């Protein structure tokens, strides 16, 4: 099962290598969003620094949604989902493969956003371990939820407007926890940052289980 998952993820990452969507389009978009936040807050440097954790996760949210969309668009064009169904892969492998592909692409995206954060919002990291753990676990949680709902909303018309509506309420706790943990890591608050990081781990575990169970029925239709 893991071997097949890696095949699916490898395929998605080769697509990315050929198409350069994350590096060429989505990361610049993320940086653009950060700049637009500057406009929204009237270039108030202090305000931007205080809100930097939240703004980072909002930028991740909107660009991440595009990545989730894309990873399933790639399957719905030219009937590729049929080919996946016929491939003999167990649905769980396809789920895990999609998750792994999303995680890698999100890491690339976040790398660009973090640089933007340091440069544009004058952020300094006080607790590197907390910062990295929260980012990694938040990404895992995002990917798992994204893969599940991406499949739920795929292959149906109007999915590009439906996916955000379905996915954001589920991502709300991830955004909340990620932001609170990052605030602590940036030295902006004294909340229990590691507890919030723990919540991210719990969410990841819960949605991984749900995804593994639900992906079979989701893939079966047609």
């Amino acid at each position, binding site marked *: 099962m893991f071997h097949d998952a890696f095949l699916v993820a490898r395929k998605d990452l080769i697509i990315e290598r050929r198409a350069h969507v994350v590096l060429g389009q989505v990361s610049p978009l993320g940086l653009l969003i950060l700049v637009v936040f500057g406009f929204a807050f009237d270039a108030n440097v202090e305000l931007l620094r205080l809100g930097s954790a939240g703004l980072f996760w909002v930028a991740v949210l909107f660009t991440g949604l595009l990545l989730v969309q894309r990873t399933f668009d790639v399957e719905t064009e030219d009937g590729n989902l049929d080919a996946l169904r016929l491939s003999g892969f167990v649905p769980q492998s396809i789920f895990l493969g999609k998750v792994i592909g999303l995680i890698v692409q999100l890491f690339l995206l976040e790398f660009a956003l973090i640089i933007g954060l340091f440069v544009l919002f004058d952020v300094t990291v006080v607790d590197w371990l907390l910062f990295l753990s929260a980012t990694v676990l938040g990404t895992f949680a995002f990917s798992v939820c994204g893969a599940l709902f991406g499949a739920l909303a795929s292959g*149906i018309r109007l999915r590009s407007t439906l996916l955000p*509506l*379905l996915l954001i*309420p*589920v991502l709300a706790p991830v955004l909340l926890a990620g932001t609170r943990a990052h605030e602590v890591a940036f030295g902006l608050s004294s909340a*229990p940052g590691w507890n919030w990081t723990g919540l991210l781990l719990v969410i990841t575990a819960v949605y991984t289980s749900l995804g593994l169970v*639900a992906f079979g029925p989701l893939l079966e*239709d047609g």
Partner: protein
Amino acid sequence: MVEVSDQKTPKLSKSMSMTATPATRVLATVSAGASLVLLLLALIVSPADVVQGDAVRMLYIHVPSIWVAYGSFGLTACTSGLFILRYKRRTDRGRHYDRLAGAAAEVGVVFTGITLFSGMLWGKVTWGSYWQWDARLTTTVLLFVTYLGYLALRRLPADPGVRAKRAAIMALVSFVNVPIVHFSVDWWRTLHQKASLSIGRRPEITGDMYWTLMYSALTFTFVATWLMIHRYRVIRLEEMRDEEMLQQQLRERRSENSL
């Protein structure tokens, strides 16, 4: 069961196109009567709060609404689970679970909307603003949007069996999400509140207020049940109409052979 019959399927009779039955008429009368009594109790008989004054009467709408909403969404989750376990595509058996899930979710969304609206009005009167980012209202908004999304998913053009299955999966996933959201938001606001002044204390609920609240919950449950039954029946009628269209199309398909 998909059967091809040669006789025309009987048209829905006029009496079948109304969804009321003697049982629902009784329920409607009871609900209406109970609501009148509730008005009396809530506005006149029960006392005003020491601190909040008459504004506290909003409690009798706000709290039972969210209870009814939670109950409805719980019902949606249960019936969705049963649907996944019991649905057999061949015989369309188990489809009633899907209908009930849809009806319950709609009623739930309506009452969540009422909760939000009454909560905002109450907030305006007591805190001076419509929104204070307290845990309860924030969680309720997310609940509202979650199930609006669920209803949007139910309305997509797709094969009914496929759509019902996806909706059922979403209902179960949403049900798991609700406590996660609740816990996160609650913890967030509690941590925040330690650092700031308390926003507004919940009134002490004792005596007459307590009984009025319980009575209100009962009344709201009657009204919600009545709404759900009617909505379920309307869904059933919609499906019967689609079934008729299917029989019609099966006949036409077969008649292609005689050309």
